[in-house]
């Protein structure tokens, strides 16, 4: 696309089409649907972090008045011991089945064991207490160091490390070892005059969406089963649930409710297959809602990590070598995002010699789920902290040093491709030129700068646009709207068709009324589903031109489409879109456009953040006093929602850096499974978050869009972390920088 393109609707901040419903409480989320005859499901969860299930007897619970169904792992008929890829990449079908209902062994505090459906949730709750279960408690493994140590208790006796030079003969908690390399790492360090190196730790942190997982389901023997649930991808819910229950895809309809936040955590299933089993057994619709304690214990979180990084540079600032070793917790089943950590860690830099190895390690915690740019914040935290240290050692401005080494068009990445046009340099320049960066710091304050890289993804999206006889239309898409994406879809279609956005109503189709669409994740929706919307809109326009041509007895090529009006270039005739729609019955029937695509060419989005903190040296409390988030959007379709993504990502990252962590006892039990003790940022913790939108168009999208949802959570960990280091003058290695940790660092007891 050309950079000078003028847009009519794109780039304005319209009122979202689903706004009225959402500010009045009318919008229906996962827990908001009730059906006639509906009963309630509840789950018995493991009180231990690691234990064998020695005996399980549900007969007393089944006999309890009001109980209508009981489900255990043995109710998954089609799941055998052999691992089959579930299509979600990281979790095999067997692991998924064992995660939603444990088989023989519980692997984390809160692991689901038995589900009960009863007339009321109170009865279901009472019946859970009647399940007779005996455990043999095993020693839990709570950290990658323990898990990787010789003689560690083994979670899965059948798991052998993949990716080793020699095939291992003993089981291990390390599921996979992987490495990426480029150039000659040893030569790179030989060439270096200054070397920095440190080991870092990031804690287990939860996505923290405010809406707990919830679903209402109805099993029908005749193949009309349906699931209503809060999910980022209802087609993925359908695929996983159908496989677990041995159903054909066509026999299961999944309806995506409005979704109250996901951040990656609602890309897998927990309740849905269990609820469907309970419905099958009871013959009644079943509703299940997790309480907050269950959300913390059994869903999400993001990986805790330990990483060691070493960087070498010449005195002139040229970085000559970057090396790293990352160990990521996967939780109870293999599949941490360590690969993404390896792929992203060094990618903001154009450096010839790189080497990184990663370890995917199982521990007795909930299976990790994707969390906004999965794997990247932890790895890039380590690298960005060290680049700031390197700047100090070289006597350089940290932005200037980054500019000198920044990845740009043509830079070879460690994971394969060379970059097309990317906007890191533009983001660094915008940060450097911001008012924020010019402002002097006060006493007890510190400043941190950090960059972040995320790939963004494309993939399959399907859209159709159905036109009505009055010239209005419905955009049917398959990507759940988590942050206002309906507004962007409406604007892109309006732009392509040349009509007012308000004439088009975007809706999220269920799995039966729109073709397969990948979920809302990977910052893909505005990019990929947006492309499908544009294609469908262009299809509508092409048909409009044909209809006009047939009315005028000319060829479609002789018709021009300008601002929603067909013009006859061979005469004076003009027909508006509304007029063509009104006459559609006479020109071949109603008009609908289609865009079913597999989008390629997702454009990476770089971000650069600036953070100023003030540290209370008597208590160790850190306040963020000024924050700026700069990021490349390619093209911001709806600037306010783009800013919102930057600000929301920044604040999630600030929470991760300052407060958020899972706290476990020595017994492996989670001690802070609630919002009171797992403290996410509240309004009074924060200043305004300045957002600066940089636009370096992605030439693979008709309007230049790059995804913007994820990169913004990457820089805050080091921007905040280094700001604290800068304020207290003591190296920071571990997150979160909660008051006791900062206090100890100041006291020299870190």
């Amino acid at each position, binding site marked *: 696309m050309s950079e000078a393109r003028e847009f009519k609707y794109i780039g304005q901040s319209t009122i979202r089409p689903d706004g009225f419903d959402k*500010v*009045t409480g009318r919008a229906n989320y996962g827990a908001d649907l009730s059906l006639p005859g509906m009963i309630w499901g509840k789950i018995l969860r493991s009180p231990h972090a690691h234990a064998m299930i020695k005996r399980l007897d549900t007969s007393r619970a089944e006999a309890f008045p009001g109980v209508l169904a009981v489900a255990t792992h043995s109710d998954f008929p089609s799941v055998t011991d052999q691992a089959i890829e579930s299509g979600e990449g990281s979790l095999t079908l067997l692991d998924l089945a064992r995660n939603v209902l444990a088989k023989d062994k519980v692997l984390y505090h809160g692991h689901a064991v038995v589900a009960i459906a009863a007339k009321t949730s109170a009865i279901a709750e009472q019946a859970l207490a009647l399940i007779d279960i005996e455990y043999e408690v095993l020693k839990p493994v709570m950290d990658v160091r323990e898990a990787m140590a010789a003689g560690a208790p083994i979670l899965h006796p059948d798991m052998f490390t993949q990716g080793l030079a020699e095939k291992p003969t003993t089981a291990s908690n390390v599921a996979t070892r992987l490495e990426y390399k480029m150039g000659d790492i040893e030569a790179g360090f030989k060439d270096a005059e200054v070397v920095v190196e440190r080991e870092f730790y990031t804690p287990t942190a939860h996505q923290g969406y405010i809406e707990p997982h919830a679903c209402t389901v109805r099993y029908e023997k005749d193949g009309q089963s349906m699931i209503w649930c809060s999910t980022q991808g209802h087609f993925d819910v359908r695929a996983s649930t159908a496989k677990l229950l041995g159903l054909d895809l066509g026999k299961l309809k999944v309806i995506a409710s409005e979704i*109250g936040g996901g951040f990656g955590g609602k890309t897998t299933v927990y309740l849905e297959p269990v609820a469907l089993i309970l419905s099958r057994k009871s013959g009644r619709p079943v509703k299940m809602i997790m309480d907050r304690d269950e959300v913390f214990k059994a869903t999400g979180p993001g990986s805790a990590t330990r990483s060691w990084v070493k960087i070498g540079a010449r005195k002139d600032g040229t970085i000559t070598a970057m090396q790293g070793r990352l160990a990521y917790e996967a939780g109870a089943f293999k599949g941490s995002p360590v690969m993404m950590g390896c792929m992203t860690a060094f990618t903001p830099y154009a450096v010839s010699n790189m080497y990184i190895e990663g370890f995917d390690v199982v521990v007795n915690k909930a299976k990790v789920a994707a969390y906004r740019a999965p794997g990247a914040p932890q790895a890039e935290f380590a690298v960005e902290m060290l680049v700031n240290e390197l700047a100090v050692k070289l006597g350089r401005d940290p932005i200037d040093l980054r500019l000198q080494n920044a990845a740009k068009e043509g830079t070879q990445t460690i994971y394969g491709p060379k970059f097309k046009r990317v906007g890191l340099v533009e983001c660094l320049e915008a940060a450097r030129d911001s008012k924020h960066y010019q402002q002097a710091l006060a006493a007890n304050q510190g400043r941190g700068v950090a960059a972040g890289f995320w790939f963004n993804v494309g993939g399959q999206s399907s859209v159709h646009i159905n036109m009505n006889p009055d010239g209005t239309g419905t955009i049917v898409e398959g990507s759940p709207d988590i942050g206002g994406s309906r507004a962007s879809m409406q604007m892109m279609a309006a732009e392509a068709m040349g009509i007012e956005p308000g004439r088009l109503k975007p809706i999220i189709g269920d799995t039966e009324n729109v073709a397969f669409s990948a979920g809302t994740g990977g910052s893909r929706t505005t990019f990929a589903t947006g492309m499908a919307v544009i294609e469908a809109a262009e299809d509508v326009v092409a048909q409009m031109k044909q209809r006009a041509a047939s009315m005028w007895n000319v060829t479609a090529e002789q018709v021009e489409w300008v601002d929603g009006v067909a013009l006859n270039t061979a005469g004076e005739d003009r027909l508006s879109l509304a007029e063509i729609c009104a006459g559609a019955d006479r020109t071949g029937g109603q008009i609908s456009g289609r865009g079913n695509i597999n989008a390629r060419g997702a454009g990476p989005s770089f971000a650069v953040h600036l953070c100023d903190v003030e540290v209370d040296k008597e208590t160790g409390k850190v306040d963020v006093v000024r924050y700026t988030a700069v990021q490349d959007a390619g093209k911001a379709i709806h600037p306010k929602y783009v800013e*919102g993504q930057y600000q929301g990502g920044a604040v999630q990252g600030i929470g991760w850096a300052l407060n958020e962590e899972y706290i476990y006892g020595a017994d492996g039990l989670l001690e802070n499974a609630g919002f009171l003790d797992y403290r996410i940022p*509240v309004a009074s913790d924060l200043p305004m978050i300045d957002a600066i939108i940089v636009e370096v168009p992605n030439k693979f999208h008709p309007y230049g869009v790059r995804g913007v949802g994820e990169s913004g959570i990457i820089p805050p960990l080091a921007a905040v972390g280094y700001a604290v280091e800068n304020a207290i003058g003591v190296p920071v290695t571990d997150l979160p920088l909660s008051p006791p940790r900062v206090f100890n660092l100041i006291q020299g007891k870190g």
Partner: protein
Amino acid sequence: MAKLHITTSINGEATEFLCEPHETLLDVLRNDLQMTGTKEGCGSGDCGACSVTVDGRLTCACLVLGVEAAGREIGTIEGIGGSDKLSVIQEKFLEHAALQCGICTPGLVVSTQALLEQNPNPTEAEARYFLAGNLCRCTGYDKIIRAVLDAAATMRGAA
């Protein structure tokens, strides 16, 4: 256990319901009265998604029993704005894009209304502290605070 018969007023409308003694006001609203505009994020008073007013006082509906509604005036999100018009607060939330997923929004609208009734001219800090009990994980609060301050200014201007 026998259900209890409760007489109350919700959004100015005389209302009766039957509930178990242990049921929270939030359960009653959502499950018995099908008023699902009030959301549940935690059930323990920590997120503010269930914000309602009881005799005009801002309250977490998950921390009040249904039976305690007897004889009181309950205000919920369903009582704010109409079927085809929005309150100034709701309009400002939309104008400023102060919601992404929207699950926190009903609670924030109820809380903001309570704030502006008590303090029609809050400073940014006062707004941030008053709304500190309403968690939003999506927005980082920036646009919410802007919407609240703009709503306050507009309402003062209109008054």
